[in-house]
């Protein structure tokens, strides 16, 4: 199940979830930054929890609920987290952005009113080379204050 839609695919055992999302399903929001679970550019939600898709075998994701960045907007309407990132200038090159937003989504669902420290701790697995993180943190905190 990807973004609420069921899929049935035949994949070889050695393919990772990241590869299958990008190649077979053409969902290219998740990126390969390092391939080793260190950068978080491949972050997707697996049963609502953030994971590195580069370290999940596609076959291990069988039967689970996968959410990618593409699953956040509905009928062309952006998700509040996406809106907040735009509003706060939290996007430069955009490479880390899908992973950042999904990590933020998981955080806000578990902790609707996080402290700055909790926000930063939730993002330790998402690297950004452009922004210095400040605007990303502010974007996420703005959602906490508005009671999301």
């Amino acid at each position, binding site marked *: 199940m990807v973004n609420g839609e069921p899929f049935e695919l035949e994949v070889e055992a050695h393919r990772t979830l990241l590869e299958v999302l990008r190649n077979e399903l053409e969902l290219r929001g998740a990126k390969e930054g390092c391939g080793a679970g260190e950068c978080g550019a491949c972050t997707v939600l697996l049963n609502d*929890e953030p994971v590195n898709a580069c370290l999940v075998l596609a076959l291990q994701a069988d039967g689970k609920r996968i959410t990618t960045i593409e699953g956040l907007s509905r009928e062309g309407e952006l998700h509040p987290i996406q809106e907040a990132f735009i509003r706060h200038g939290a996007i430069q090159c955009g490479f880390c952005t899908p992973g950042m937003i999904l990590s933020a989504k998981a955080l806000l669902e578990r902790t609707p009113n996080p402290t700055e420290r909790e926000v930063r701790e939730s993002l330790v697995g998402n690297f950004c080379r452009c922004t210095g993180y400040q605007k990303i943190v502010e974007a996420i905190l703005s959602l906490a204050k508005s009671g999301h």
Partner: protein
Amino acid sequence: MRLKPFEFLNPSSLDDLFKFLDRYGREAKCIAGGTDLLVQMKQRQILPKHLINLLPLSGLRGIEKEGEVLRIGALTTHADLERSSKLEKGWKLLALAVHKIGSPQIRHLGTIGGNLCNASPSADTAPPLLVLEADVCLSGPGGVRRVPLEAFFKGPGQTELREDEVLKEVILPKPPEGGLFTYLKLGRRKSMDLALVSVAVLLTVDHKRETFGQVRIALGSVAPTPIRAKGAEKRLEGSLLGDEAVQGAAEMAAKECHPITDLRASAEYRREMVKVLVERAIKQSLGISIPPTGI
């Protein structure tokens, strides 16, 4: 980074698992969260022809209190441990330590069984489990063996696990009443790093807070395996609370370890940091505030 092809096997029971292990032996590896294994495979450090998926064995995941003892299934993730209300009193040390592993993404995949069987000398679950005096249950076709964790680690990446066995669960005995504890992990960054040096302390003091009672100290990343610093422990047990005993124990611990020089740090630095961290860990356990230390 692409993986090389392999056969993926899904056992539906432990018996199935043992059949696969028997059939494929060294050409098979078990996979749980894959956060260590898949990285090693991508780097071509190991190239198993068959991967046995442990995740369907959902009975191996979970945390249960049984009488006075805590049983943790091998497939319990670090995220499960971080969040569990069952890790109370001294057992909470384990929850605090796993919080320092990697990132939320890693912690949602990585398991306690994987951390132990990967047997890195820097494994973050090890020093806490050593001071909690945990046992591991190794399950094979002939039955289950219960082994003290101290005897489980044999060397870097090497454990007591036989080719036909799987680590089934970790058993934590009741911790000492009134136990005070700390886990300190020194790293090059504030997160997403392995320990340069790590220290777990679990101790008790008498009701007047004048002398040390039981003391357990474990060190990570400074020997071929995670170790207990038993000389340091003896130095403290029964001693009066005070700088002299604490510093004596810290110096003793620094002498008991066998660090190596590698790309992350020199042996000399690690040895010096054992002294610093053991002192700080004891102080923090006693409620004395220490400077920000590591991850």
